[in-house]
Every structure is written in structure tokens, then in C-alpha cells.
């Protein structure tokens, strides 16, 4: 957006009766920035939506296999991550509140907290993938290849294929989120983001909520679909 040193002075348009109307310029258009970011997030919705569609396509074809595969995932670790993300959404939100109420220092603290939780999330994820690997479930391992003695049924291969794809891409979004937060801190420190000009902070908070939102569906789809299978 505009360099703050050149404050934008809105223009006035005059209609035929001499009434004055303020013109919205592109400079300093907070609402425009927010709208733009929401539109960007819709593209994420479409991307993950398409992946969920692929997943559901195969779920329909291989119902039993999917439930079996799902019951093999570690629900405890998945659950921990769900709670971690939940809390991180809170800290992010509180950070923004603090920023808007003028408490820049508190806001920075909250961003750090969010980042910490994000790293924990990634750590748990890494642990989980390692466990999967040890159990022979990983892309490229024999179990997920076709035509050998360890080959899993199609439904399970496809389930895990999408599991690694989608949790992987979700994790990638977390990493990007961390990057964005670091950048945000830098902008706050250099005074580019202030309680009055907080659109960047606002949008990054939105992004983080979106990442959380995606998880809200990824988690039950992969981890909980087969949960009933054990209890009968």
C-alpha cells in the first residue's frame, strides 16, 4: 500500500446539484484490503474443496477400506493438534485485539505465542508421520505401492495418499503462516503496522483462522471417520 509519508487526501466529486461526494481512492482503502484478502481465502476454499471432493469420490467407491484406514490413524496426536490449533486461534485473535486497543507490546507477545503453538503443531505432526513411517505407512513404501505382498487394498492406498497430501499441504500452510507472522513482527517493529494501520495484522489473523478452519474438516474426515469402527 501507499507509503505512509504521502498521506492520501481523498478527492471530492461534485454532482449536478452541487452536492459533494467523497471519492474512494485505492490508497488506504482498508475495507478493500480486507475484501481482497477474503477473496484470496476463497481460492484456498476452492483448492481444499477440490481435494475433499477427490477424497469423497474414493470414499464412495471404497467405503469399508476408508473406515479401516481411518481407524489406523493416531487419534490422540490428532486430537492434541486440534486443541493446539484451537488455542493458537485464540492467541492470534487476542493479539489483534491488543493491537487494536493500542497494546503493541502485548500484541507482539501474542503473536510469539501463536508461533510457538504453530511450531508445536508441526512437531506433533512430524512425530505422527514418523510413527506412520515406522508402521510402513508412507508414500513410496511398499504398503502404498501396488502389486506386492504388502500392498494394502486400493481404498487404503488412496486414503493414505490423500492423507499425506492434504495434511502435508495443510502443514505447508502452517509454515507459511509462521513466515507471515515473522514478517508481521518485523513490520510492527519498524512501525509500519500500528494500532491505526493494522490491516496486515488483521489479514494475517484471518489467514490463521482459515488454516484452523481447514483443519476443522481435515481432522474429523481423516481421524474420526473410522473411530466407530473400534467400538463396533
Amino acid at each position, binding site marked *: 500500500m501507499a507509503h505512509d509519508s504521502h498521506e492520501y487526501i481523498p478527492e471530492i466529486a461534485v454532482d449536478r446539484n452541487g452536492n459533494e461526494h467523497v471519492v474512494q*481512492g485505492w490508497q488506504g482503502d482498508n475495507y478493500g484490503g480486507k475484501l481482497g484478502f477474503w477473496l484470496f481465502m476463497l*481460492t484456498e476454499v*476452492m483448492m481444499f474443496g477440490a481435494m475433499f471432493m477427490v477424497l469423497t469420490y*474414493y470414499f464412495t*467407491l471404497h467405503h469399508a477400506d476408508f473406515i479401516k484406514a481411518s481407524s489406523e490413524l493416531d487419534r490422540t496426536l490428532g486430537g492434541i493438534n486440534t486443541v493446539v490449533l484451537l488455542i493458537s486461534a485464540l492467541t492470534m485473535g487476542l493479539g489483534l485485539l491488543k493491537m487494536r486497543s493500542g497494546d503493541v507490546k502485548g500484541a507482539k507477545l501474542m503473536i510469539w505465542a501463536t508461533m510457538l503453538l504453530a511450531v508445536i503443531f508441526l512437531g506433533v505432526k512430524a512425530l505422527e508421520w514418523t510413527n506412520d513411517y515406522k508402521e510402513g505407512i508412507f508414500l513410496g513404501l511398499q504398503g502404498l505401492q501396488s502389486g506386492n505382498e504388502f500392498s494394502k487394498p486400493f481404498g487404503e492406498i*488412496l486414503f493414505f495418499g490423500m492423507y499425506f497430501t492434504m495434511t502435508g499441504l495443510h502443514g505447508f500452510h502452517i509454515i507459511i503462516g509462521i513466515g507471515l507472522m515473522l514478517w508481521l513482527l518485523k513490520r510492527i517493529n519498524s512501525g509500519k503496522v500500528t494500532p491505526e494501520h493494522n490491516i496486515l495484522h488483521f489479514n494475517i489473523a484471518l489467514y490463521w483462522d482459515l488454516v484452523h478452519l481447514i483443519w476443522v474438516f481435515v481432522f474429523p474426515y481423516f481421524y474420526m471417520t473410522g473411530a466407530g469402527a473400534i467400538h463396533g
Partner: protein
Amino acid sequence: MSKSYFDETHCAFGHPKSTFMQWMLTVDHKRIGIMYAVVMFTFFFVAVAAALTMRFELFAPGQQFIDAHTFNQAFTLHGVIMVFLFIIPGIPAVFGNIVMPLMIGAKDVSFPRLNWFTFWLYIIGCIVALSSLFNFNIADGKLVFNFADTGWTFYAPYSLNTDTNVVTALVAAFILGMASILTGLNFLVTIHRLRAPGMDFFKMPLFVWGIYATAWIQLLATPVVGITLILALLEKYFGIGIFDPSKGGDPVLFQHLFWIYSHPAVYLMILPAFGIMSEIIPAFSRREIFGYHTIALSSASIAGVGYLVWGHHLFTSGMSDTAKTIFSFLTFFVAIPTGVKFYDWVATMYKGKIVLATPMLWALGTMITFAIGGLSGVTIAMIGADIHLQDTYYTIAHFHYAMLGGVVFLFFAGIHYWFPLVFGKMYNETRAKLAFYILFIGFNLLWFPMFIAGYYGMPRRYFDYLPEFQIYHQISFWGAIIFVSGLIFMFYTLIQGIRKGKPCGVNPWNATTLEWHLPSSPPPLENHTKVPYVDFRPYEYYHGQPVVKFDENMKRID
């Protein structure tokens, strides 16, 4: 006006002294539009060259001068460039950038720097696409032509099996898709936020409506193809299995995903083109457009329904018959709003004063060619008919009539229409009209025979064909020669116009919309001197003269 950021430097960053760097870093929407045009136009000729290569090769059955593999790469190159590098960015990137902000009385798009970034993202996409042309063989230091040979549709599993540079091509398509998304996003926010005071949605010029509907498609359909390409890459490198039949993956699913984007993409191409038509017809009929509201809303409904009909590309793919029926049914619903537009345009000519200047000639010519393209689309939307015609030259003829005879022709119409706006000069109209006639004749000679060949069973993407089809290919060949000659002549005329054209003032066509009310031509940096207040309809004429007039401070004086 007070000093603003924009006066000091209209660049993404820094204050470059050299003109060259000022262009490279510019955030001015008009300059970015012009740069898009130059780049596209260059690629466009590469694709034309590939097309001509194909036509030469197909002159007679058997091998002429390239082998089958090279031929397959040629039509892939042709399709990929035409679609991803040329026609999808096409009108939005060029005229959406240059005139859309002018039409709504804005000083620029909502995110000028994002616009700059998008342009360079597009360039990166182009470079990646180019890099996929060749393999560098380190051993003997030779460049080997190794472009993808999958067709622009990249169908799995072929695209996963071939050892040509499919991966780079996919990455290029992904990057270009990102650029397209960002363009759409920028325009959506611009149209929502930066309209001049008083201009509500139903006071916008119809080109802006076209861009608006298009932007929604860019924004919401492109991510689907993006993720499809990513899934294909993951499939290739990590074997996730979803497109690999030996792991239970279904190749037909790839086609679903691909067309969920690529069908809306064809409306993404045509809607802004229809917008140009809606500008030209009233301007050269010297009267107000007929059925403004229905034209505007039909753009929106074409975009909306267009999302739901992708399956008409899968009529012979093994998809279920139930789905075929649904898709066929829905497809026809796109034709209705399109028809409404056509009738509205014709009705606009009724009791007008038809000025057959070059842009109008192009517009009327396109009515003919696109009607043929669209009606042939309706033919293949009939399932039973498409079972016979799918993947034949009939389809090829359909979409060239729609894309070349619809989109590109209207692009040309737009070029001739807005040429004086951008350059402040006029090309030689006699020559430009002559170029139109050559192109129009060449075009029909080139593509019409293909309808017949297709009906008789000539499959597409055939390097060689049964001798029965030779006559059609030969007529096409001569058509192509005439067409390309006309093309060269047209560009020659335009370039002469840039160099030596006569200055023509700000509103040579007597048009009404805001982009013709600029203080000077070419337009100054921040567009209109003042933002006008808009409480009038976009195409108000009285006795053949524009009703709305402004003084130099954009105050109404009529």
C-alpha cells in the same frame, strides 16, 4: 490536485531515472496493460507458427516434413500457448487493465503493486513455459526439443507416463493460473470499491460487467486446476495413487477436475469479449443499447451456469450415463443467456445509424462467426451427437470458431476500437477494413471444412489421416495461408498507425463511456482530471450525439 505518492513515483519501488526501468517497475494500469499486450502478442506468433507447422504437415496424408512425435508437441505447444499464455490472460489483462479503471472513473486498480507483481508472475510463468521447450543435454552440450506431448488437456495417465517435459509445463500452467487469480482478485476489489460516486452496478458500462463476471471465474475456478496440477505432480513424484489405475486411481477423475476449471475458462475468455461487443454496437449505432439489464445479467448467469456444465467434455469418457444426462441438460442453459445477448445487440441496431467503421465491421463479422461457433457447441451438447463428434475435427472447428472467431476477433475489434485511446492516433481505416475482409474469408475457408471432415470421422490430434480426408485439409491449408497473410497485413497497418497515424483527438468515435472523456489522448498518468459524479446511464445518445458532456474539470456541462 495535491501531490500524491503517485506523482512522485508510479513505480513498484524506488525512483528509477531511466525510461526503461520506469516501464519495468511501473504500477500504472495502462502501462501494465500495454506490456501484457506486447508479451502476449509475441507468444501468440509462436503459437501461430506452431499452427502453421501443423497445417503444412497435414497438407497430405503420410509424413511431410516433421515426425509424429514433433507433431504432437506442436499441437500441445499451440494449445498451451494459445490457452494459458494468450487467451486466458487475454482481454482482461490487456483491456481490463487499460480501460476498465477508466470506465469506472478510477485512478488505478485497487492494488497497483499487486498488479505489477501479477504481471511479473505472468512473465515468470512464460519463462518456465519456455524452459520446458528444451532439454539441455549436458553430455554432448546439445539442446533437445522436448516439449510436452500431452495436448493442452494434460490427461492422466498419459501425462504421468510420457518422458517429455510435462512437469515444467504443469508448473508453468500453475504459475500462470496464480497470475490469473490475482488479476481477477484485483479487478473484483476495484469494481467493488473504486467506482466513481453515483455509479451503481447498473450504471457500469457492459465491458465492466464482462470483466466482473470473468473475474469471478478467474478467482473461483482457477484454484481447482491449480490443485489438479499439484495433485498430478504429487502423483508423478510421490505416487499418491489417485490418478494411477494400478493403485485404484481413476483417470476419469482427472478429467472431472481438469474441466471443472477449463470449461468455466472458456467463458472466462468469451465474457470480456462480449463486453467489447456491447461497447462497440451502441457506439457505432449511435443510440442507446437495447436491454442493458438483460445483457448485464446474462453475463452473470453465463458465468454462474458455466460452472456447472464441465461434464460435456466427458460424454465418451466412461462417466456414468446419469451424469451425462445432467450435464447435457445444464449445458443448454448457457445458450439461452447468450442468445439473449445476441438478440439485444441486433435490436440495438434497429433504427440506429450504423457507422461501418473498422471496429463495427469486426463486431458484425464476429456475430456471424461466433453464432456458428456457439451453435456448433449446442450440437455437441447433444449427448448422442457428441458420442459421434467428440474428439473429431468437428470439435476443433467448434472451438476455433468460438475462440478465434469469437474471442480473438473481438479482441481485434477492441484493438481497433481503443487504439486511438491508447495512442492518440488513428490507423489507416481503408487498409484496416481490407485486412478484416481478408481475415474473415481466410477464417471461414480455414475452419468450415473441418466441420464436414469431423462429421465424416476425422479424429483430432492425428498426425496422419486416411486419404478420404485430404480435400478438407487442403482447403484448410489455403484458408490458413490467406488468414495469416491477413493477420500480417493487419498488424502492419496497426504498427504503421502507431508510427505515422494522424492525431485524432480524445473521442474520435463519438462514444459515451467515461474512458472517452479524458483530458488528453494518450491518457495522462492519473486518468481523469477529477473523478466525475455518475448519475447517468452508460450509453445515452440523443439524435446520434452523446448526451453527457464534461468540462475540463469533469463537471457536467450538458
